[in-house]
């Protein structure tokens, strides 16, 4: 079983079975309040997961997690860090590894799996990056390991320029306001199975910290 956590947009927590069945899915769409809600969502997800796949009515059993998957962004930093800190601490508590996942990969997998018979054209996952910017990543189909095929890295663009940027890549625009926790876990499951876990040590910050270097001393005058 894999616990999936993402706080790059709202707060999403899910648990999936080894066969990919969703055991728990707890989420808040609030773009703020990640630190407030993360503990409650984790506790809820663990309780739900103990009862088997969603819809099952079995007696509770131990939730034998093997990995904690976490969305590494891109997304507004302050909230994004809450999920990553939580994932690392949760995994440490269980003595299991963290699998870092690109949050846009999870959103892309959701698009690609929505209708298994559809021929999904090249598309871009587009998310709010605040400060009048979007973050986008272009995808084209799914590979043999069941992972979305990335055409570009995650990129920041002025909101007014998004359509021109996507036209350059001949990519359809898929605005995304939710990163499903189950898809974060599923990307991780497939990456683990294929031996393709990415070594993302840092969040995908995309921006340098906002700092002003100290200038010359200001005069106070008389």
């Amino acid at each position: 079983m894999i616990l999936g956590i993402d706080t790059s947009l709202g707060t999403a927590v899910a648990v999936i079975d080894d066969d990919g069945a969703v055991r728990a899915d707890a989420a808040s769409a609030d773009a703020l309040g990640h630190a407030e809600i993360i503990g409650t969502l984790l506790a809820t997800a663990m309780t739900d997961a103990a009862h088997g796949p969603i819809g099952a009515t079995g007696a509770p059993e131990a939730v034998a997690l093997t990995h904690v998957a976490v969305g590494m962004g891109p997304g507004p930093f302050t909230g994004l860090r809450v999920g990553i800190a939580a994932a690392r601490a949760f995994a440490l508590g269980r003595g299991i590894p963290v699998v870092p996942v690109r949050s846009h990969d999870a959103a892309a997998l959701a698009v690609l799996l929505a209708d298994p018979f559809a021929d999904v054209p090249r598309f871009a996952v587009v998310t709010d990056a605040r400060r009048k910017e979007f973050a986008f990543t272009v995808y084209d189909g799914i590979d043999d390991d069941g992972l979305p095929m990335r055409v570009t890295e995650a990129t920041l663009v002025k909101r007014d320029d998004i359509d021109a940027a996507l036209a350059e890549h001949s990519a359809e625009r898929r605005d995304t306001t939710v990163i499903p926790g189950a898809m974060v876990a599923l990307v991780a499951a497939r990456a683990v199975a294929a031996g393709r876990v990415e070594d993302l040590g840092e969040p995908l910050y995309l921006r340098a910290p906002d700092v002003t270097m100290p200038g010359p001393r200001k005069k106070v005058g008389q």
Partner: protein
Amino acid sequence: MTREPLVLGIETSCDETGIGIVRGRTLLSNTIASSMDEHARYGGVVPEVAARAHLEALQPAIEAALAEAQVTLADIDAVAVTSGPGLAGALMVGVGAAKALAVSLGRPLYAVNHLVGHIAADILTGDEVEYPTVALLVSGGHTSLLLVRDLVSDVELLGETMDDAAGEAFDKIARILGLPYPGGPEIDRAASTGDPNAIRFPRGMSRASDMAEHRYDFSFSGLKTAVARWVEQHEATGQPVSVPDVAASFREAVVDVLVTKALDACARHGVPRLLLGGGVIANKRLRDVALERAEAAGVAVRIPPLSLCTDNGAMIAALASELIMSGRPASTLAFGADSTLPVTTIQVATSS
């Protein structure tokens, strides 16, 4: 729960990632990873830089603390975390980690007040600690004067800074004098050969007119302006500026106000005990003046070792440990980072 709970505390309110482990009142580990060096080139703590550093430092710090304490996470009885006050984005990293760790381990979580944590640090010295006590907490993030009647139930705010924290004032004056960050040790070094009475800088919030409403409050912005103006005027008229004299006179003004107000609080409340805490306690002149004047006033001064005075996770674990031993229920999981958490709130989100 055992009578002596094993508690892991997480502190991320400013630029130190602190992980502490205590058993009852016994300190097992006080592990600190500081991002101070990263802030040095900016001349002060940059919140985003601090938050990034916390995220990177947390897991290694927890692992190092467990190793030092020679315990495993399975042994931990409770997790403690700073909810506030402090830098919001920095606090959130610790809150997220602490909640997840508590849920992962199936252990209770105690979310506590950073300032009260500074007072709790004293318990880890192993000495018998007596209350009530006046506490003076001075750092780069806060300057607070508190009356502690009971650590887990009755902490009163007597006064606090109206503008800069004392530690910030040291950083700003260091910049004016062309000294590097952090300013505290630099000012100290420069002041060691200076005359503390060379220049009479103002003592903020100390006029008779301030006494009615701000008897125990502090203000350092006027002092900062006075020092800057003095330096400018001397430079403009070509008079020599003695950095040691300015540093010593500035430091004396800060120390004088801090100690005078703290001992005034002791006298007015009939409390013959003063606890010092916060990173600025590293300042030897502050310690010396406090000890000397307190002795004359018949006040006993307690100064925990510096590693427990600066921000740390052990004090957070110590406070939670006291809460547990006095029978307090855990916090719920429904709380956040509270950058302006009042000191009267010792524990947040207490379950009923």
